[in-house]
């Protein structure tokens, strides 16, 4: 599913999208794009207002941290991973595969 153009998301930034009624976030980490469900594993609140620092996103609600590539939980109060999606970049288009 094509969600955005490469130029839409500058390095170090992220943007929320709704794909198939599913909330997702696509972020740009130094030119590499990652996509994950816009839902913290702690209380299922949206992550898109959080802070992105390298590959680590910090949830704006309670401070949980996740690796945007693997989804792994890195800091309390999160103990479970977030859902991540495969991303493909073709020409200047970003494609996200949502099962």
């Amino acid at each position, binding site marked *: 599913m094509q969600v955005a153009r490469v130029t839409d998301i500058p390095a170090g930034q992220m943007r929320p999208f*709704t794909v198939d*009624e*599913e*909330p997702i976030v696509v972020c740009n980490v130094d030119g590499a794009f990652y996509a994950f469900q816009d839902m913290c594993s702690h209380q*299922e*609140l949206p992550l898109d207002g959080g802070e992105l620092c390298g590959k680590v996103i910090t949830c704006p609600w309670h401070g949980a941290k996740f690796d945007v590539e693997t989804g792994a939980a890195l800091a309390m109060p999160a103990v479970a991973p977030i859902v991540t999606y495969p991303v493909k970049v073709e020409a200047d288009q970003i494609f996200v595969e949502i099962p």
Partner: protein
Amino acid sequence: MTTIADISKDNVSKTAQTVGDPAWLKANRDAAWERYSATPYPTRKEELWKYTDLSRINWGKYAVGTTENVVLSTLEKDAAARGAIFCTLADALKKHPELVQKYLGRNTDTVNGKYAFENLAFTDRGFFCFVPKGVKITTPLHVETQSTQDGATLFPRTIVVLEEGAEATVFDQFTSPNAKDGVIGYTNARVELYVGQSARLHYLQMQNWHNGMLHLLEQHAELERDAYLSATTISLGGHISKSTIAAILKAPGAVSYLFGLGYGNDKQQFDHHTMQTHLAPNTTSDLLYKMAMNDRARSTYTGIITMTPDAQKADAYQSNKNLLLSKTARANTVPQLEILANDVRCTHGASVGTVEDEQLYYLESRGLSREVARDMIVHGFFEDLIGKLPEETLKNAVRKAVNDKLGTTIELEDIAL
């Protein structure tokens, strides 16, 4: 084509015309429309919407102005002769406008906010059941509200009124006979039950919609002195199904039973919220909700017992039991108590468990396949609840609907205990 996304005041007028509104109802609709327009959709930040997120729903998928069947059974002649009424809402508005006016929207209590205003503004079908003082209807009344069209939108309203000493059993069913795979729809229903002094009402609400339905329902029951209500909610269909069920015990001696049953598979989401509100002394309420979830299905149960300071010597019980049938099935349960009177008895319980391996081994050792064994256990899990229904026909209707949903080869005779 107008959809929920671009619905306007014109649609209020059109609905009023189709239904054949008396002036008072049109005025009610207009008022509801104003509130609907002014009210934002609830968000997950609100306690009751924490587990059901409709913020990403594309309302443009649902076309307004759907006409589909509402099928009613026949009222006993004797009861009709004594003044009982059982007909579609549109018919009732034509024949008994004053009586309907007395009850339709009499209670405006809602926890569903915008959705409740939406229903009132666009109520387009439903039925009216009125049982006068002392009249007892023995045969269950059956209403089948159907939806099979793709993109259909339904705003049903059920009104059941039992006057003093009246008795009735009402089976209110939402169903999609022979719906094609992949169809979607949206239902936003409102149910109002008025149980008069010493009246007895058995009300069974079953939705076995197709799995593309987004189903919202808000049910409100008021019980007068010594009234008896048994209200059962069966949730089987839809991809999201959220029901709010309230019983308000307004006068001493009122007794309310709330029962709920849900079976989910695939990615279905069920959300049941119940309220047992004791406003008077010596009132009794009991509740049992049983949910079995398979595949990636999720059940949420939240329920609250409220004992106001006037509810001395009241007695309340609340129990939610969940059976998880797959690794990815989920259950949330939040049974709550708010007790402001001290001389009461109040107990609640909740549990989440799984099918015990021993149970499966036992049934397999009796020659059943694992799937059938599991389905038998699901039937067994529900059976005590089904057993509380008043009529054999109703019990069998529920058993059959559950069995159809399970899709097994089990014969109905094998599960009726």
